[in-house]
């Protein structure tokens, strides 16, 4: 039984840590690449959403690398994500692969089934050890998230481009190697010290928020490193969702430090009902970022994503009312790096000009989204 799961940002460190703790066999899919995308797009349905194709590509590459048990989260909509596991099972079975798909569903009526599946996955390890492993992994996830946040906040001041990113990579390694809570506490201090020791220069500050669909926000390869690009353009960046929010869906958002309800309340004048996925938070958090004094918001959405399409059709109104520029980036397998880079550059310039103008007390036209 060789278990695998799709990539999503730093998820590999978190789930990997669970399996290491339990001493179970697992295979990581090869890192995301153009080939992942091509495989996914070839086998996946034509206008299914982008993450379905990329995770399908991950699965195929992992199967080629010798995995035979695939883990995927499933649910009950209304977004398509809940049906990914079943669709991918059908596609892979038809493509002739030999595997077992284990969808994990966490709604109350399906919990008994999920417990049974987890029981099989843990292969005779005790429930107590599984609990301990997961708890430890969640601690790691929380630390990784805070480190990532620190990187987002400081990258714009780097004296040399890429210094923070390099330090962050070393931090990942340190967290990965930590085996006990004592280790983790030590790593936390060292990692933050390492990040803070990156040489800085004084620059003019602009603040840009990232909202959107969680997979694209969390997965740097497929969002074309938007965070890093913005950081290099001199922007203090904050994103609205971290891995911990997704792994512990309590609505708490420990890294960002506010509750989902707050975001929903802010969105209410524009979007008064949950539309699945992160649709309502894309709207609410845009307003939140505006209140926190951000100069612009970048919305990331996979092509044909239903909740984000709704958010995207409402955001121009928000942008006009509040005077915050919103850049919606629609990403799919045909999105080119250069196009995104150009638009981000223009957007960062726009945010900078607006900030200067505001400082000089110049009247600004409400900026429609583009």
């Amino acid at each position, binding site marked *: 039984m060789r278990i695998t799961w799709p990539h999503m940002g730093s998820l590999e460190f978190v789930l990997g840590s669970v399996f290491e703790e339990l001493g179970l066999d697992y295979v990581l899919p090869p890192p995301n690449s153009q080939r992942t995308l091509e495989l996914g797009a070839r086998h996946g349905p034509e206008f299914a959403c982008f993450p379905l194709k990329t995770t399908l590509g991950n699965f195929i590459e992992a199967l080629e690398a010798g995995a035979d048990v695939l883990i995927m989260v499933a649910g009950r909509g209304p977004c398509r994500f809940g049906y990914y596991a079943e669709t991918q099972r059908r596609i892979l079975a038809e493509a002739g692969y030999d595997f077992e798909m284990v969808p994990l569903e966490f709604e109350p009526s399906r919990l008994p089934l999920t417990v049974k599946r987890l029981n099989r996955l843990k292969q005779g390890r005790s429930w107590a050890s599984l609990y301990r492993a997961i708890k430890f992994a969640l601690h790691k996830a929380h630390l990784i998230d805070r480190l990532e946040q620190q990187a987002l906040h400081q990258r714009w001041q780097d004296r040399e481009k890429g210094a923070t990113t390099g330090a962050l990579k070393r931090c990942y390694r340190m967290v990965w190697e930590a085996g006990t809570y004592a280790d983790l506490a030590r790593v936390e201090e060292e990692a933050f010290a390492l990040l803070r020791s990156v040489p800085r220069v004084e620059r003019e500050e602009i603040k840009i928020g990232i909202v959107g669909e969680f997979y694209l926000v969390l997965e740097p390869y497929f969002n074309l490193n938007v965070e890093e690009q913005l950081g290099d353009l001199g922007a203090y960046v904050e994103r609205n969702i971290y891995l911990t929010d997704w792994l512990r869906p309590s609505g708490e958002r420990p890294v960002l430090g506010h509750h989902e309800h707050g975001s929903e309340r802010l969105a209410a004048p524009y*979007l008064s009902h949950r539309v699945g996925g992160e649709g309502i938070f894309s709207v609410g958090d845009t307003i939140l970022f505006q209140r926190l004094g951000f100069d612009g918001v970048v919305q990331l959405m996979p092509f044909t994503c239903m909740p984000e399409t709704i958010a995207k*059709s409402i955001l121009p109104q928000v942008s006009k009312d509040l005077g915050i520029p919103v850049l919606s980036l629609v990403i799919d397998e045909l999105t080119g790096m250069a196009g995104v880079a150009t638009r981000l550059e223009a957007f960062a310039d726009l945010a900078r000009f607006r900030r200067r103008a505001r400082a000089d007390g110049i009247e600004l036209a409400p900026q429609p989204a583009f």
Partner: protein
Amino acid sequence: MKVGIPGGLLYYRYGRLWNSFLHALGAEVVESGETTRSILNSGVSKAENESCLPVKVFYGHVLALKEKVDALFVPRLVSVKRRTHTCPKMLGLPDMAKAAVGDAVPVISPTIDFQSGLWHNYRAVYSLGRIFTSDPRRIIAAGVTAWREHRLYLERLTLGLDHRGALRGEADRLLCEGRDLRIGVIGHHYNVYDTFTTMSLLERLGSMGVDVMTADMVPEKLRERELKRLPKDIYWSYEQEVAGAILACSRYRLVDGIIFMISFPCGPDSIVRVLCEQENRLMGGVPMLTLVMDEHTGEGGFLTRIEAFVDMLWRRKRREAEELEAVAV
């Protein structure tokens, strides 16, 4: 008070219900009528690029009504059946309509959600009625009338009338008249019954001498039975209907061929398509043509494919008949 009902999306299912309810309450109901070229064009220019075709058409209908009415009626249907959802686009529809018309016209949007029980829905309908009248008896009477009209409308669809015929109650032109070849045209109501975006597909098939079977005409019992066989249940209400109809058609050979109507880029349909095509193949069902429509679909290409599909079905039918004869001899 003039209330406008945009003639897109769920209008093709609940239009009769909404119209008669509002009418019975004493509102002056204005409908945007059937989709036209100009409605589609204005919708396409206003709506988000990534929206699906029916949402763009809906935008067009909203804009067509904008100047003519005091309020727009766009209900929010969250769930119409226990343990299911409608499509996310329908959850956000009133908000999208608001963003489209701005503050010029208020949008009346009661929330219907069968996951939160009957009382909640009763309250929603009642408070909708209170906008127009303060007489509770009148609201309840209007509700009863509207529901009766709605049942009648659905019954007519089941009997084999198309949307237009069912609205007017013309019982003379049926889609299914017992001709030799029968094709299942399955898809969402707004994909199948919209004569403009489908380029009068139902009518054209009729004039080719082909019987048409829509998802409404497939017995509900068969649909439900097919859905129960699936390893993971489908959680979109209308998608259940579509998938159930396709699977029932192919398992029980209710039709000679299936045309699956999808609009680009419909989210749930992209998933259900994989499921239906695979199941149909696995059970050795009937030939299936998946037609994806968008605002650029040209009439020529569309018709060629349908004619080719119909020709193929005829040929297949004849061959089967010949083989049967040969065996009998």
